[in-house]
């Protein structure tokens, strides 16, 4: 298959201004410019055109993964990353490139009007090139979006597990819902950090709202209890349901040295006793 011809390249070079103007117009009508400053867009379009010309000059148009296209690929990665952060969807992001097709095809049509065979070939090549670049943009856009989603998931995890202060020196972590290993880990880490921040001597992990635990989660719990002890605080586990107790015994996990209480109230009572605090009814 033939590559893009030097004449095509030259035509692009000499008509840059026209291409840019038509492209910008196309972008605007397609709605791909929403939320983007006009100045930024102008800079992006002209930089892209420069890069595509440079890419054609030192590489062939059939393989955009070749080193000659490094710069343009990096440019597109940066572009799609910023688009993802702006909240644009993949279609809007990809239209940035696809909107160049119209003006470029018009240019080629004009340039090769005497040679239909060559025109068809060059159109095909240009189309292939822009498609490949567009695909690359979508791929990297997807990656950026995944990174955004991953970060949001982590933030959600932290939000969904509040560590509450029950008394001066007593923290509680009421765990609700199914525990997976990742969530347990995040929760435990934030509990440990809060122990240091508040100087609390006793931490109560309440698992009343947890329907079941598996081996991994039970192990995480035990590891947390040990880590809390290493830091110099004490840990009480409250609200162990019969099914969970059975699981723990069945799994052969050693709960030696772990203090367990039937419910949160009993755990708090024990914590207060340990701190030498008595609570009584006012007459």
């Amino acid at each position: 298959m033939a590559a893009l011809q030097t004449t095509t390249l030259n035509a692009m070079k000499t008509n840059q201004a026209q291409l840019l103007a038509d492209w910008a117009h196309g972008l605007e009508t397609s709605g791909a410019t929403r939320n983007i400053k006009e100045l930024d867009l102008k800079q992006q379009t002209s930089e892209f055109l420069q890069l595509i010309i440079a890419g054609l000059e030192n590489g062939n148009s059939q393989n955009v993964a070749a080193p000659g296209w490094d710069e343009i690929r990096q440019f597109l990665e940066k572009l799609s990353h910023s688009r993802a952060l702006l909240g644009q969807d993949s279609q809007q992001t990809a239209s940035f490139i696809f909107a160049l097709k119209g003006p470029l095809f018009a240019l080629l049509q004009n340039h090769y009007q005497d040679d239909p065979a060559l025109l068809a070939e060059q159109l095909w090549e240009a189309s292939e090139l822009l498609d490949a670049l567009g695909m690359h943009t979508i791929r990297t856009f997807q990656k950026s979006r995944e990174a955004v989603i991953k970060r949001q998931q982590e933030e959600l995890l932290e939000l969904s597990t509040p560590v509450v202060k029950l008394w001066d020196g007593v923290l509680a972590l009421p765990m609700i819902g199914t525990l997976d290993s990742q969530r347990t880990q995040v929760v435990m880490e934030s509990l440990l950090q809060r122990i240091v921040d508040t100087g609390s001597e006793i931490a109560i992990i309440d698992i009343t709202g947890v329907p079941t635990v598996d081996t991994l989660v039970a192990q995480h719990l035990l590891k947390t209890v040990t880590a809390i002890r290493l830091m110099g605080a004490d840990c009480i586990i409250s609200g162990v349901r019969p099914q969970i107790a059975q699981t723990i015994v069945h799994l052969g996990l050693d709960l030696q040295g772990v203090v367990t209480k039937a419910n949160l109230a009993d755990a708090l009572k024990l914590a207060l006793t340990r701190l030498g605090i008595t609570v009584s009814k006012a007459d």
Partner: protein
Amino acid sequence: MTVRSIGSQPIQIEQDVVLARQMARKLAQECGMRLIDLTKLVTAVSELARNTMVYGGGGDMDWQILDEDARTGLRLVFRDEGPGIPDIKLAMTDGWTSGSGLGLGLTGAKRLVEEFELDTEPGKGTRITITRWT
């Protein structure tokens, strides 16, 4: 997977173990690793670098920062040309030691990282590769 940067740190004397730890800490920070993961990695480095020095008779720690999809990873290779490990299964048992340590070096380090690869040949040396992703 693309390699962002590479480098190497010799491990010959005790002070080099400290330097290897500090280097790993700096690189892990560059990768944007969470504090817990970073601490685990640095601790694994301490164990493995000590092994390289004590049992391997000295060697090197090669490092690579990797980019793959949306994540970044730090890969470290500890290599020596020492006597090697004759019985891998035994060496990977908690509490077993050929020296005077606690026998937690290799097994502990393995638990602290996501990827652990042990390559050894008696008389030729040992090569341990660990990777931790963000």
